[in-house]
């Protein structure tokens, strides 16, 4: 499918959310772009706009990015109501302007969730995810020389399933897309990825309890199984991972024993 391209590039009208700071009230700002190359990525289009803004003494639009190759999870944006834009399983940095027709109007908003407060313009603070990871999204191992790889066999189907979940880049699109701003797909991906592998299995219970508790502290909404998260995820993490997290959490809750040394209840 070839998009009709303008000889001198695409004319794009951009409605961008501008907000000078976390507590400032924001508003949309409209920019008319002439001759946008269809080969540009969405972020490059913003770069070009920013250059012209700086050139005329205006402040550039702030947005997050890093690798620009779809693997780091730094880029974000809700484009025309879609987290990471309209292309399925594609991050914003991998979205290209050839997707748009000449004369298109595009609305760009930040990821919206109270647990992801706006820092400036399109940049939101996603450190809530870091705190959830710090609560249990790791495996405890002694440092030293790497163990012999063949001493811990992992079956291919299991490795594949773990890898499907390890594909999570922690971008937060699941939160942005969820009608309840819930972070369950992210946490489910981490819990699944680590639980499925022998290295992560020993801590599966403490991890499930700690990560869910950390998630709840951050003010995300509760999952009501809309499955918008799975549909929006740029890495195609399946919502069946959330079912696995539910099982893991329930299992861990049922197995958890009162803290050692605590007086028995009712004593």
């Amino acid at each position, binding site marked *: 499918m070839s998009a009709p391209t303008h000889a001198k590039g695409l004319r794009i009208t951009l409605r961008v959310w501008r907000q000078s700071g976390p507590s400032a009230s924001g508003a949309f700002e409209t920019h008319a772009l002439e001759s946008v190359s269809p080969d540009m990525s969405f972020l490059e289009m913003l770069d070009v706009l920013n250059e012209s803004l700086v050139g005329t003494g205006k402040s550039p639009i702030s947005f997050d990015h890093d690798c620009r190759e779809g693997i780091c999870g730094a880029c974000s944006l809700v484009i025309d109501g879609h987290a990471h834009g309209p292309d399925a399983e594609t991050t914003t940095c991998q979205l290209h302007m050839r997707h748009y027709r000449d004369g298109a109007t595009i609305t760009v908003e930040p990821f919206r969730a109270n647990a992801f407060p706006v820092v400036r313009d399109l940049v939101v603070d996603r450190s809530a995810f870091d705190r959830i990871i710090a609560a249990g999204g790791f495996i405890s191992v002694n440092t030293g020389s790497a163990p012999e790889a063949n001493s811990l066999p992992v079956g291919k189907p299991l490795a594949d399933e773990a890898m499907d979940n390890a594909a999570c880049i922690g971008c937060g699109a699941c939160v942005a897309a969820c009608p309840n701003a*819930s972070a369950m797909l992210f946490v489910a991906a981490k819990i699944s990825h680590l639980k499925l592998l022998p290295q992560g299995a020993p801590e599966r219970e403490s991890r499930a309890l700690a990560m869910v508790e950390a998630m709840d502290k951050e003010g995300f909404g509760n999952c009501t199984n809309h499955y918008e998260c799975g549909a929006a995820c740029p890495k195609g993490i399946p919502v069946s991972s*959330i079912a*696995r997290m539910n099982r893991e959490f329930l299992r861990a809750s049922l197995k958890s024993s009162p803290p050692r040394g605590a007086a028995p209840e009712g004593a």
Partner: protein
Amino acid sequence: MMAWLQKLFGSSIGKKLWMALTGLLLLGFLVVHLAENLLLFSDRDGAAFDGYVHTLTSFAWIPLAELVLAGLFLAHIVQAIRVSLQNRAARSTPYALNPGHGGRTLASKSMLVTGSIVLLFLILHLAQFRFGDAAARERMAALVRGEFEKPLVLAAYLLGLMALAIHLSHGIQSALQTLGLSHPRYTPLLQKLSVLIAVLLALGFASMPVYFFASGASR
């Protein structure tokens, strides 16, 4: 024990579990309720149904069962309102554009609305058949038939049951996911079954007002 339960059901996953468990128990009640009501069709004068109602209400434990059932409804409703408010509070600035990503459905979006319609319907239903005139309740089959001959009652029942079907079509599959039942092999089937159960249940209940309205009209 109490602290543990509070921690479990106070967590985000525990809140879903609460909705799923109370919802499934209420579904169980609906299935039994439909089965007993279908006795209305077993004879012309309603003797079988009246006999059943009489035997059932003569059991000493029935008031207790009614209390438990009322508690179940309350537990489901109160939690639904609490969670909905919390979820709304998790995003104070709404999106300017929100076309959806293809996950949510009409049913999943409207749980609070369909649930509220079912609640209104339930209030009407209880007023008619549980807290109505005591003498009339002695002959329940006749009371039911008489009520169902009113066009407004028929309309209210059809609306209430439609809301119930939509509510359950998301509710059942959602409860299964919450309980951790998900697998690429059987989840698509379970999702279709949820819709089927929801529709069959609503049709089963609707058969009574429709039949008695139609037979009343043809008399």
